[in-house]
């Protein structure tokens, strides 16, 4: 508690951890490259340096606020220092801005522009290092790294994976996996959080837009899209829509305008996931199968179990992810000459996620020897395609999804936020659909921002113990407690990214604190607006199980043994 004076104005503070937070709360845009409220304070970039009334300079991110402090944030001296810091960073930076994938959203580029740096006086003597294209999800370009360490900290602190680290010292220092290995040779789970936190083009999404452009240009190819729930509440960021606004209709219209033949909502196959996963859960409970059941929607999490807890592999649900299920269903449907119209089918999956790119090429993502999902695009790539096609996204009239897979329930929509899968499964298991039941499920403790949530739900005379986790470091904690017997659960839902897919590795950046809440709210609103709230109420479920796909559920919806 207290007051500090910033640039002559008195500002009250309460429990803020550092001076930087107060400065920003006061509405002053203080540049930083290495500070993130969700990570430990690193104090490396020095851009947030401020000056006090005695002329002393210190980094505001690492300074505790004290009552009566008097600081200045943009004096002539500080602005000169900041400009020099950025100039020096630029000197050792590969400056191919116009062709860099990060152009336009690069923090370093933005700072250079704001600070008016028109030339770099220092020469770069570093040899160019090879760019790592080995991962299906992430491209690592060490020549663009500024050593802020954000990726190092998010990878180890939030995700508990710890693939990226600092190596060497002084001018030789670099961020790299151990022994300079390629990402594909490490325990990297492709979650993409390193890319979310990277301020430059050093870690970026491996893009696959060209394959889609080629398919769209081929008249003999039917291009089919599925759009994940979390995409709709983030895509508008790039077009000035309000944070978290559901722009699904506009996305569908944009894809139609680009020439996609059919556009579907992955919420449909999320409904299928609910049907299959709840059946699997009940079967395991009844027949003494492996418990706790671990959800399988998140490919980064599935890879994490493979890497770190191989002895628990059989606990992972055999269900394919909603992406996997839908692509298999689409491919199967159009494999039938009666539906194909003589065209080949190209499935594009639009996801908030970089790990889905890895999932799509996993050996168990093939049906009848054919890769189910041809290309995975992230939300970020989608926004780029919309711009590439010259679509005025803010003006385009919304359109509805196509048939025969165009209907989905609210249960399928909330898959994009942590706790959503569990909530949808609980709705399915509930006997009735009335406001009281749905509200009780929503209030059972599975919604909310925390990384680890627990709930106990009475069902048919038993107490079903559930744990909902987001962030892989949290998942590791829970798994270790389960292994040691300290905790016992029947169902554990894990999303690798904190807060779930809405904050996935493929979402547009930067995503500040306002986005997190807004995106979750956007999805819950999309759920509430629907007449169908429970997956089993979706009439297309009955069509699936008793119509065209009768008898194929296991082949299409579960991982092959």
């Amino acid at each position: 508690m207290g007051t500090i004076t910033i640039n002559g104005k008195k500002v009250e503070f309460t429990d803020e951890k550092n001076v930087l937070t107060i400065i920003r709360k006061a509405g002053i845009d203080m540049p930083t490259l290495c500070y993130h409220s969700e990570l430990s304070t690193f104090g490396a970039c020095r851009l947030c340096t401020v000056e006090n009334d005695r002329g002393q300079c210190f980094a505001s991110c690492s300074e505790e606020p004290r009552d009566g402090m008097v600081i200045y944030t943009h004096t002539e001296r500080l602005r000169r220092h900041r400009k020099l810091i950025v100039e020096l960073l630029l000197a050792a930076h590969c400056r191919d801005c116009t062709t860099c994938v990060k152009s336009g959203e690069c923090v370093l580029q933005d700072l250079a522009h704001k600070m008016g740096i028109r030339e770099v006086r220092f020469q770069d003597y570093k040899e160019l290092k090879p760019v790592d294209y080995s991962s299906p999800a992430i491209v690592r370009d060490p020549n663009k790294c500024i050593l802020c360490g954000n990726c190092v900290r998010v990878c180890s602190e939030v995700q508990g994976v710890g693939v990226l680290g600092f190596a060497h010292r002084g001018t030789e220092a670099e961020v790299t996996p151990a022994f300079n290995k390629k990402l594909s040779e490490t325990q990297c789970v492709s979650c993409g959080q390193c890319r979310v936190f990277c301020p430059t083009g050093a870690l970026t999404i491996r893009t696959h837009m060209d394959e889609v452009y080629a398919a769209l240009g081929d008249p003999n190819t039917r291009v089919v899209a599925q759009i994940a729930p979390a995409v709709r509440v983030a895509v508008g960021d790039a077009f000035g829509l309000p944070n978290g606004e559901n722009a699904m209709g506009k996305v569908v219209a944009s894809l139609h305008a680009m020439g996609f033949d059919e556009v579907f909502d992955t919420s449909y196959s999320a409904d299928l996931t609910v049907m299959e996963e709840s059946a699997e859960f009940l079967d395991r409970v009844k027949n003494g199968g492996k418990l706790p059941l671990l959800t399988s929607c998140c490919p980064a999490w599935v890879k994490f179990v493979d890497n770190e807890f191989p002895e628990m592999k059989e606990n992972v649900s055999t269900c394919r992810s909603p992406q996997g299920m839908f692509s298999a269903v689409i491919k199967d449907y159009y494999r039938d000459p009666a539906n194909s119209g003589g065209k080949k089918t190209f499935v594009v999956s639009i996801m908030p996620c970089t790990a889905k790119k890895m999932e799509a090429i996993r050996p168990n993502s093939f049906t009848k020897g054919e890769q189910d999902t041809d290309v995975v695009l992230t939300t970020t790539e989608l926004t780029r395609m919309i711009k590439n096609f010259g679509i005025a996204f803010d003006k385009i009239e919304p359109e509805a999804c196509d048939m025969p897979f165009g209907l989905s329930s609210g249960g399928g929509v909330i898959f994009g936020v942590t706790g959503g899968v569990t909530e949808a499964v609980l709705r399915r298991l509930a006997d009735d659909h009335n406001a009281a039941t749905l509200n009780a499920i929503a209030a059972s403790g599975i919604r909310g921002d925390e990384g680890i949530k627990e709930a106990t739900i009475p069902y048919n005379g038993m107490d079903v113990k559930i744990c909902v986790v987001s962030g892989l470091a949290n998942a590791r904690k829970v798994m270790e407690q389960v292994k040691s017997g300290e905790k016992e659960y029947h169902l554990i839902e894990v999303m690798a990214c904190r807060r779930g897919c809405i904050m996935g590795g493929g979402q547009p950046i930067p995503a500040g604190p306002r986005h997190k809440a807004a995106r979750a709210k956007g999805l819950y609103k999309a759920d509430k607006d629907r007449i169908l709230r429970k997956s089993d109420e979706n009439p297309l479920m009955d069509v699936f199980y008793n119509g065209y796909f009768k008898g194929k559920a296991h082949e299409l919806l579960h991982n092959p043994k």
Partner: protein
Amino acid sequence: MLDESYYRKTDEIIAHYGREAKALIPIMQDVQAEYRYLPGELLAYIAKQIGITETKAYSVATFYENFSFEAKGKYVIKVCDGTACHVRHSTPVLEALWKELGLSKKKHTTDDMMFTVETVSCLGACGLAPTMMVNEQVYPAMTPEKALALIAELRGKG
């Protein structure tokens, strides 16, 4: 693949210091003392045993100049290139050694695994500059001629 004996020796060293993150540096030092270098496979093994990531261990090992992932020769020659040695002509000594042994800035060890030549920033014997060390023995006031004579002598010893 390293021989099983390497892992057993490493196990002994780890047991001596305890399976804790803070034991990393002493363990690495002892492993390096044993084999005159730090085999990469063992670094990964140590990290796993003491519960840290391989990346973290690599980070520490590369931070300190002293740790080497390359196998070193029987005689490790450290030519001091600190300020005092540098101004008293340590560079010609280094260059003479490089030329004689066919080594360079990139290649540190002779193919017959007899000699490794590296530079260090200070041996703490500036009064004796230019200084050189061969394994644990210090050689003061070096010249290119004295260095070459020393190589010949060491070769004679085998």
